[in-house]
């Protein structure tokens, strides 16, 4: 964790060009002296170690610093944007699981049938399709035939206008989720196949249990253990996916914030976001570990 903060910090200081290059705007570039004064006002003239320790101290107190352009504290902007990305991420995750796991299971239980072949071909196609391509095609088709997936120019709040919000989010979420669903399908299938070959499944069949019970209670329960780990692995890709999709659909979430800040070299924002993204991944991996030990009582973390 500390290592990542250091890495991110070092990267931002090594980045070529800085925001003072952009500040001059229409009046031409600022001269070196003015630049130095502005940089000093953000404490960027101190040596790295001082800056780093100061930044970590602020982070621990929950202070992310300010945007170099607007001067607004970053935490305020984040509070606005975080729920939006969270909504997108959660929807995407749900879609990923809802598409991925059942198809994976059907494909495993009915191995070497048409269900299986279709499922697997679909999974491989999903893995290969660039989701930004589908997003562009969807937008262009929607523009031509006036389908309901037309991206509205502004983002309607979830609580102000729930229906418009869901309409707005449905397609981006579907695309972000579908990107990982291919992996999920393949993985669920493998996990389920492995489990269905076990002795206790044969026992369950020979006890005369119903198919549903064998598959869901005896099979899925055990297959869930490896499946849960993939959810953890899927997260870094999911965050990347939201960056791309938010850019295309102009969703004012964290991903677009990141790209904007990076292009303007708004370093404190980029730093803060990189750390938050990383934290999300680490925390969710931790949660996956916990879920793991609940699902599989044989594992005990000492």
């Amino acid at each position: 964790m500390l290592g990542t903060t250091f890495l991110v910090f070092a990267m931002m200081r090594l980045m070529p060009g800085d925001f003072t290059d952009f500040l001059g705007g229409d009046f031409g570039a600022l001269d070196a002296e003015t630049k130095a004064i502005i940089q000093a006002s953000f404490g960027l003239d101190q040596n790295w170690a001082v800056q780093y320790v100061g930044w970590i101290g602020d982070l621990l107190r929950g202070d992310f610093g300010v945007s170099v352009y607007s001067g607004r504290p970053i935490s305020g902007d984040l509070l606005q944007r975080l729920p939006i990305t969270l909504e997108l991420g959660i929807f995407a995750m749900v879609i990923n699981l809802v598409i991925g796991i059942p198809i994976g299971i059907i494909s495993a239980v009915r191995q070497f049938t048409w269900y299986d072949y279709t499922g697997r071909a679909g999974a491989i196609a999903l893995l290969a399709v660039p989701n930004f391509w589908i997003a562009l095609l969807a937008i262009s088709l929607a523009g031509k035939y006036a389908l309901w997936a037309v991206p509205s120019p502004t983002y309607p709040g979830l609580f102000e206008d729930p229906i418009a919000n869901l309409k707005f989010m449905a397609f981006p979420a579907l695309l972000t989720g579908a990107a990982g669903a291919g992996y999920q399908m393949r993985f669920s299938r493998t996990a389920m196949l492995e489990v269905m070959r076990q002795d206790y499944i044969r026992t369950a069949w020979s006890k005369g249990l119903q198919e549903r019970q064998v598959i869901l209670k005896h099979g899925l329960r055990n297959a869930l253990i490896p499946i849960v780990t993939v959810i953890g692995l899927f997260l870094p890709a999911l965050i990347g996916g939201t960056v791309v999709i938010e850019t295309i659909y102009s969703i004012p979430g964290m991903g677009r914030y990141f790209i904007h800040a990076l292009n303007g070299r708004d370093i404190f924002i980029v730093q803060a976001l990189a750390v938050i993204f990383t934290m999300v991944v680490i925390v969710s991996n931790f949660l996956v570990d916990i879920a793991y030990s609940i699902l599989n009582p044989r594992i005990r973390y000492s």
Partner: protein
Amino acid sequence: MTSTSTHIDDDETQAALFGMRKEDDRSKFLKAISGTWSFARGYPMGMMGAVIMLILVTMAVIPQLFTPLAVQKADSIIGIHISDRFETPSWDFWFGTNALGRDMYGRLVYGARTAIMIGFGAVILAKLLSTVIGTVSAFFGGWVDNTLQRIVEMVQAIPTLVFLILFVVMLEPRMPDIGPLSSDMLVILLVVAVHSGFVSSRTVRGVALSLREETYVEAAQSLGASDSRIMVRHIVPNLIAYVIVSASLFVGAAVLLESSLSFLGYGVQPPAPSWGRELNEAREELARYPHLAFFPGLFIFATVWSFNMFGDALRDRLDPRLRGST
């Protein structure tokens, strides 16, 4: 091409092992044909992937083969032709022309070179790196393993695309142009390779750990073989099948990452042709000219799909134990 080479390898090792006479070239050739044929029959989808893959690689090496006389001039691909802007697909411009009047079909064909170069380059580097890190980490254990694994965890915790974007922005102006690779392509290649090298060294380490416990390693050790000899002669050769399979599955991912980066504007810089970049430019005129967005994506999809299909079949063929794992 691959199934055949494994056949030949098998023969060679067998010949070496049992002191047999090496087969002559003619029967080798026949073997190669029959090997390819049995691969095609056993894995029709894999063979289809291989065929598309071959077409794409040819496209990357000799793009002139695919472009008709009219667009053979590099000019129609790089230059600016205001009078030809936004042509819809026609006999002259198969896929239409873009905002600068450049022929889309030609650009996409030439884009194959960018994609394949970055894809293959990144994969080769990444697999070398992951083999070295994984083997060293597993073999030495202790503090070496600890340090390396902490670094791997650090890289893993940062979301892939965020990691790539940050490093590309940081390194791009500091890179030299090397031969056909301009600095922007080189930096993508390196960053993708390093990221994947670290992340996938995890699994290599796992495999190497189990190999370290094998009796033949113990035997070599008791015979007084040095650490480096054991790693190079005993552990790495046994990793090769695994590494080749995972490499063939990763080319598609690398191409996808390159096009994502280019799409976001951090990748290949114009006027070099890149599929992701082409999609990015198509965004501006999406409502009026959707065909500009359709074809580049189709190329990306076909490339990634064919490499994945081929890699899948290859894995089933070379190492059935890995079947079905992602």
